[in-house]
């Protein structure tokens, strides 16, 4: 089949679909995800591992929604819309599930907010408040994880890590260094630099600090910050992605 070059400024050929979110009729491009459509229409769906400008990962499951006719809950960040889809984002069942996910996250590692450098600027803390998670019903694991302070400017405290992999994705997709990756399974799972060498000895790390800025918790932080002092500036990411897309 002959292929003709597309004019540079031609609009991409995507169909528009209509669907229903929380009883509200919305239209969307057929290649959009439920989460991005919801964001466009001012419908809030709690999410943690998702970050605009990075590929969707679907790891945290906080953005799960109910879709009519499908017995499973689906992650809104990585489910593409279809024509006639009926989505519920905030049912009692979903609230219950989100709360449980947050309880398990808080119980898995150390998320003591009061002494954390990210206290007051933490997405996990904010999500707990938003979802009404005011106490953890399961036993805390109390397992110690490593703190790596070998880097000149930054620190990784695996006790605060929720394994969202934003650092892995931003380092690979935006910085192009792929210093970060994931090692191990289950409770042994952790993010690593290079082939699990100390961050300070990493040969691929450019010390750009993007991983620190996109980290939702106090896991990746600037050195020299005291409790509550670590504010993240993640806003650069959608801008950077958009501008690069235009090149």
């Amino acid at each position, binding site marked *: 089949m002959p292929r003709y070059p597309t004019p540079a400024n031609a609009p991409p050929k995507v169909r528009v679909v209509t669907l229903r979110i929380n009883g509200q009729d919305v239209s969307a491009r057929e290649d959009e995800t439920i989460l991005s459509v919801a964001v466009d229409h001012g419908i809030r769906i709690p999410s943690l591992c998702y970050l605009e400008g990075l590929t969707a990962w679907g790891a945290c499951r906080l953005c799960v929604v109910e879709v009519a006719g499908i017995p499973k809950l689906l992650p809104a960040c990585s489910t593409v819309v279809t024509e006639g889809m009926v989505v519920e984002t905030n049912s009692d069942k979903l609230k219950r599930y989100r709360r449980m996910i947050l309880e398990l996250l808080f119980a898995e590692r150390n998320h003591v907010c009061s002494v*954390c450098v990210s206290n007051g600027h933490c997405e996990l*803390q904010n999500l707990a408040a938003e979802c009404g998670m005011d106490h*953890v019903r399961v036993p805390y694991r109390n397992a110690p994880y490593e703190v790596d302070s070998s880097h000149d400017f930054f620190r990784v405290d695996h006790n605060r890590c929720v394994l969202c992999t934003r650092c892995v994705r931003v380092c690979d997709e935006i910085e192009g260094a792929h210093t970060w990756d994931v090692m191990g399974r289950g409770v042994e799972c952790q993010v690593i630099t290079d082939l699990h060498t100390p961050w300070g000895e990493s040969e691929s790390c450019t010390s750009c600090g993007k991983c620190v800025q996109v980290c939702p918790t106090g896991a990746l932080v600037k050195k020299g910050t005291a409790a509550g002092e670590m504010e993240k500036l993640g806003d650069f990411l959608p801008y950077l992605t958009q501008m690069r897309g235009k090149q």
Partner: protein
Amino acid sequence: MSATEKITLATAWLDGCSGCHMSFLDLDERLITLAELVDVVYSPIVDTKELPQQVDVGILEGAVSSEEDLAKARMFRERCKFLISLGDCAITGNVPSMRNMFDLDEVFDRAFVETVQAQPQRPTEGLPQLLQPVRPIHHVVPVDLVVQGCPPSADTIWYVLTELMAGRAPDPTQITRFGA
């Protein structure tokens, strides 16, 4: 209103820093209003040495870290109609629970030997047996309400108490949170 018709309130702090009680005292002039409606029958801030058999509202600050904390938590649950976990230590274990990652020998050595210059030695008497792990109060006895914060602000405490006195169920998650 006679004294016998007043709501009775008891408070105690387990393994905490007393900050939640300080926040309670930060109610300032509202304490006078409170005193007209509520009788504080047992608390570190009053003289009474024994918890009465029946109390309307009990407030516990701090985590359960020792046999003494555990006994107090159980006694409060037994004698208080409505029990409140006040602050992050009571609800999550918070800072006291950060020793859970070490074994008790290490904790004792750190506190009484490694960091002490004059006569470093472990205490042998007069101290309650420490528990491992440190636990939130609702992991050892049922709790009716949790009030987050480190510490919860005086306004939060005031909101909770006034809502309870008005016969309503307070929802402090709207005004406070972990680490607040």
